[in-house]
């Protein structure tokens, strides 16, 4: 049975894939899909395998099949760049269209994809039952806010090895989703870019291969944390 996060008075279910399911609203939240990231690099001469969009779409389809949501909200940076839709393979495009036809997707704009790219509604932010859904938030957020943007990861010790796993990071007013896209890396929660915007999370939910690990902060290895004075 999956763990449940209580955030902003709502019950939310973190999934090992990196998606967040909101049962009360039958809504699935995903962040940072970064479609067409490989082809973006291919333009520059780094010929990465062109299967990332397909892989991301398949993962998305699996999670839709599992939770059967009535709507999906993509929390921005769904496209790696604004020329992405033009580079998209026709087969991938058909797959996305098909998916959208069955389950409407609301696209929140991100820094990588500030303009609409088709496939449905494109909004700067969304408020659903008291939760503010945006691409990027800081600790100055007013009211409970769910966002993406930071690609948070956490270093955990499993057996003898220490591994960085994508994670859901919970702060006082902000809940950050891990990135969902196939070729998206991550930032450790102690990284300056994250810590200076949000401070340190009080709880993280790390995405293992099969399950979610619930980690209250005292169990999290803060390898990069400054001395707690």
């Amino acid at each position, binding site marked *: 049975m999956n763990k449940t996060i209580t955030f902003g008075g709502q019950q939310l279910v973190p999934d090992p894939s990196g998606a967040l399911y909101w049962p009360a609203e039958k809504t699935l939240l995903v962040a940072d899909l970064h479609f067409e990231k490989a*082809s973006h690099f*291919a*333009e520059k*001469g*780094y*010929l*990465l*395998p*062109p*299967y*990332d969009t*397909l*892989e991301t779409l398949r993962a998305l389809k699996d999670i839709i099949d599992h939770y059967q949501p009535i709507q999906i909200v993509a929390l921005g940076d769904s496209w790696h760049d604004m020329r992405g839709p033009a580079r998209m*393979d026709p087969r991938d495009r058909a797959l996305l269209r098909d998916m959208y036809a069955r389950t409407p997707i609301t696209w929140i704009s991100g820094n990588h994809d500030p303009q609409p790219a088709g496939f449905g509604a494109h909004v700067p932010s969304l408020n659903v039952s008291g939760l503010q859904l945006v691409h990027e938030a800081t600790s100055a957020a007013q009211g409970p806010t769910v966002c993406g943007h930071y690609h948070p990861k956490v*270093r955990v010790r499993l*057996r*003898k090895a*220490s591994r*960085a796993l994508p994670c859901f990071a919970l702060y006082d007013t902000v809940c950050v989703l891990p990135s969902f896209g*196939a*070729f*998206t*890396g*991550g930032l450790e929660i102690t*990284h300056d870019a994250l810590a200076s915007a949000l401070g340190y999370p009080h709880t993280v939910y790390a995405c293992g291969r099969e399950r979610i690990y619930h980690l209250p902060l005292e169990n999290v*290895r*803060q*390898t*990069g*944390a*400054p*001395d707690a004075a």
Partner: protein
Amino acid sequence: MSENQAASLPLHISDWFEGQGWSPHSHQLDMLAAAQAGQHAMLVAPTGGGKTLAGFLPSLAELGTAPEAGLHTLYISPLKALAVDIARNLDRPIAEMALPIRVETRTGDTPSSKKMRQRVKPPHMLMTTPESLSILISYPDAPELFAGLKTVIIDEIHAFAPTKRGDLLSLALARLQRQAPQLRRVGLSATVADEAAYLEWLSPAASAPVRLVRGTPRALPDISILEPSHRIPWSGHTATHAAPELLALIKAHQMTIIFVNTRSQTELVFKALWEINDDSLPIGLHHGSLDVAQRRKVEAAMAAGKLRAVIATASLDLGLDWGDVDLVVQIGAPKGASRLLQRIGRSNHRFNAASKAILVPGNRFEYLEAQSAIDAVKAADLDGDAFKRGAYDVLAQHIMGMACADAFDAQELYDEVRQAAPYRDLEWETFEDAIAFVENGGYSLRRYDRFHRIIKRPDGRYQAAHRRLEHLYRMNAGAIIDQPGLKVRFRTGRTLGEVDEWYASGLSVGDTFYFAGRVLEVERIDVADLYVRVPKKKKSPRIPTYQGARMPLSTNLASRVRGFFSSPERWDLFPAEVREWLELQSSLSELPPREGLLVETFPQETRYGPRHFIVAYGFEGYNAHHTLGMLMTRRMETMGYGPIGFVGTDYVLAAWSMNPVTDTAALFSNTILEDELMEWVAASSLLKRAFMEVAQISGLVERNQPGQKKTGRQMMFSSDLIFDVLKKYEPEHVLMKASWQDAKGRLTDIARLASFLDRIQGKIHHKTLARISPLAVPAVVELNVQQVDGEAREMLFAQAEDLLRIAVGDA
């Protein structure tokens, strides 16, 4: 020296020799004769025999009699520092012979203005590295630069010919040979076991002859084993207990190099010596993790005679002549006769003096190994190197380089590439795959028809798609991949060296560790930096252990070690404790046979209750045992033995389980390689690690980009993601093939394991014992140290001495 040979020595050179009061060595004259006959040549000679001069004499002769403008001789060294050193050493004879010869170096450290000038107005002799050569031949003006090249000298050829750097160099030489068909190849090598393989590597075409010249062998080295004045440890390799004897040896000699096998051992030995060094003898440290500036300082101090001892790893194995070393100490197992000989050669660089070396075994098995190494050196029985087929990622890099140089025709380049020894058997299909990869990624889903690194012109030739890509290629050329590391530095910015990511990930803020000869406390860990400070209070440090690849016991030494068990008449070579240990084994169990395999099974009480052990005395080296351990425990699982864990050492494989193993033949059947191996390699991180390197060498991802440097940490992660997707969607891709090729060759010693399993079929001696055997004690102690999972780590065993009491029935 005969009249005939003297006649071939030009006057300016024979005069110079006379002026020095020297007469040329016969191998120096032979190298000259080979040059005058226009033959390729390889000189195999020990250090200190005037080997480098022998390589350069023909060029000095030719340039002295008929000086011509333009590049005449190219010298290639595996080390930048060696290239610089050799250039400096040549200055003197050139000046004394008053030859109008310009010698310059070209490495990654050479300023770009000088590099530019070298291409326009080349020196007569250019000293460089394989990486710099690859870059040179990628310039469009390379044909003019190399058209008149007469000689290429490849130094320390034994050190890198069988590696990926060797593959890259071999491809570059094939290109040079085409641009300068008259080019003569000269190889300089330390003594190698398989001369024919090196001759073939050096040869410019399948059947082109290379003349073999052998130097006079040096006087036999004086090697001994340190007499123990203490109990010999059961386990461990550092022999820190011998610190007082070591210090006495240092005092008794002018300059000692103490070689150890791993970086962490340098720290341990240094610490042990430092604690008793009451006379404050100057002792230095030298290993690959130390900052370059720190290493240069230690080297300079050695050369100036300011140090009495240096503790070093393989970082001092190669090349330079650093001061008057009169003693070499090897701590722990020598691992191979060739390696030992190379290290011993660091002492008494003078040709006619015998080198002196002392071996300090760390445990009982290492006594057997040390004696085996001495025997092998005396018998000149050296270890062979495994030459592998040329790597595909290196090929892809070379193809890109050739597209930067000039538009190429695929068939022509294929013919040229196959002149390089590692690629002589390259199939056209694989070559096409490599071109397709460089062209547009080579993915079967042809998404990237618009994106290219090279493009096919209407005339069918390929050229680099963009000038920017040429620049990128030159920034990244080379086949040396650094393990992603973190810089160890003070907050003030001063850098002490590097630790690898795996090690750093085990450290927390506030942890202390021993590094660069001091105790340091972790202050902060960043993406690429480990900030440290000197701890306020005195704390006991954790000792760093590095992940670096382990060098296994050579096949040759393994067979000699096995031989000792069946030669009790030679046991008086060993200290009493070792001798008694072998005698006890003989009476309580059985000694490992020369052929076949001894396997012991016995119950042993542990903290968790009674468990069952199986110990196999393979003597096939750490890598092979480790791989076999992985496979064997899988099979034990299916057979219902309930394996808990295993440990592989250079000598034995030991595992423990819930139930006793009865069917040993099934565990050591050679089918284990077919059934379990592929599954395991595919599941382990081995392939991922190999892919990380392949992705960088092949140019899929670049290490250096204009204006930024990706850290290893980020690189590791993104290549991991790419690997997962590629494995899923295109498992037959050329980069996946390259990763498999690497993974198999690198860590798993598959070939060795296969021949071992073949050899022991039907010859397994299974001893079912009521209790642990004396020979099994070290392995069981080792199980305490190396564990396969967290739970097993909790297991506490009785100490070795207690175990031995159990073995002899006293308990």
